[in-house]
């Protein structure tokens, strides 16, 4: 394996405005080094002006989502050696406004998520505050939505979705998936309300099952499946 790789990093300075540009860095590679380690090496030794967002370095926080060689991954979750490339192109995520370099503004994702009622809806508020008994779920009821709770809101699926990038009003895979997580929950009582919310031109119908969202998800969540199931519920009224 090569002793060093070339990082082509997207740089964008908001004070300059206009389009971003690519700058190249030569990074020595050690065994087990991730893309994030490479970027941190650049920041420490080569170019301190590089901006990245990261936190946990172990694919839990979902901060370091970016596009590496044309596909969305978490930088901390991808080793340089597994790419098998001499040149590694690192770009910020698509479909989000870029704040600086590799840092994107993900407010739109959270805004859409909030608009889709991504919380448990209970009709009886008194009972909700002072429960009189336990609300037990069976294993099957848990499995119905458990997978979708693994989402870390990194925004990779939103960036990979071809429909979001061509039709920005589309709700996006992550918010719809999150909505399905609560829709499928046996404790949730928002069924009809939720279906009416997604049964719009901008809603589930703009998904064409391109599967890019499930392809890039670092946590094995399957947003494409969730959207199809939400659509099935919507089709059945």
């Amino acid at each position, binding site marked *: 394996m090569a002793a060093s790789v070339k990082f082509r990093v997207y740089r964008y300075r908001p004070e300059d405005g206009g389009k971003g540009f690519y700058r190249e860095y030569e990074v020595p590679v050690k065994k087990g080094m991730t893309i994030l380690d490479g970027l941190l090496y650049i920041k420490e030794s080569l170019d301190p002006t590089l901006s990245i967002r990261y936190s946990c370095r172990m694919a839990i926080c979902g901060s370091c989502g970016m596009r590496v060689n044309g596909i969305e991954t978490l930088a901390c979750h991808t080793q340089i050696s597994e790419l098998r490339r001499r040149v590694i192109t690192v770009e910020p995520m698509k479909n989000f406004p870029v704040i600086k370099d590799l840092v994107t503004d993900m407010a739109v994702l959270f805004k859409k998520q909030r608009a889709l009622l991504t919380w448990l809806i209970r009709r009886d508020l008194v009972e909700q505050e002072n429960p009189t008994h336990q609300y037990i779920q069976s294993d099957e009821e848990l499995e119905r939505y458990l997978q979708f709770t693994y989402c870390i809101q990194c925004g990779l699926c939103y960036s990979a979705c071809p429909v979001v990038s*061509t039709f920005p009003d589309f709700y996006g895979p992550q918010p719809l998936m999150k909505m399905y997580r609560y829709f499928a929950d046996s404790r949730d009582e928002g069924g009809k309300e939720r279906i009416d919310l997604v049964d719009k031109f901008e809603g589930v119908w703009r998904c064409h099952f391109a599967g890019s969202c499930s392809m890039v998800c670092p946590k094995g969540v399957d947003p494409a499946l969730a959207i199809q199931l939400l659509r099935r519920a919507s089709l059945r009224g």
Partner: protein
Amino acid sequence: MSRSEYRSTVLQSLKTMLIAGKYGLERWSYVLQRISGVVVALYFIAHVLETGNFIGGITVWSVPDYSFAEKAYEETVKLLKNPLFDVGLAVVGFLVTFHTINGIRLILAHFGFFLGKPRRPEPFEPPVSFSTRQRALFWLSISLAVFALLYALDSLMRVFRT
């Protein structure tokens, strides 16, 4: 939004729609379904107009001495003599077959069939919705479409030889 900005947005959209990149099989099905849909729709419009021209439907646009209609008929016949249209018909056969079978696959997927049930995510396993049955339908659509294309081209070659 300015005009040039608008154009660049549309170009960007086209690029996203037409280039599947590294996003896998389902993305290719999305791209192909889109292309085939648009091309077949354009073919359909052309087909309605062209059959209308043959049959004298063009007279709706003509004054009663119908010289315009006859001219349109002659011109349509002359235009369609081009062998490019024959090859185009074979390609339309490919696209129609693909769009049909892949469309059935998409309808099934939209109703939640052939996708598998949600389960706990396992490391290094593909997502549930990339199920074998669903992908088999995609490959079936591709192979039937290729078969249709080859069949049409074979007939075409026989026509050209005679």
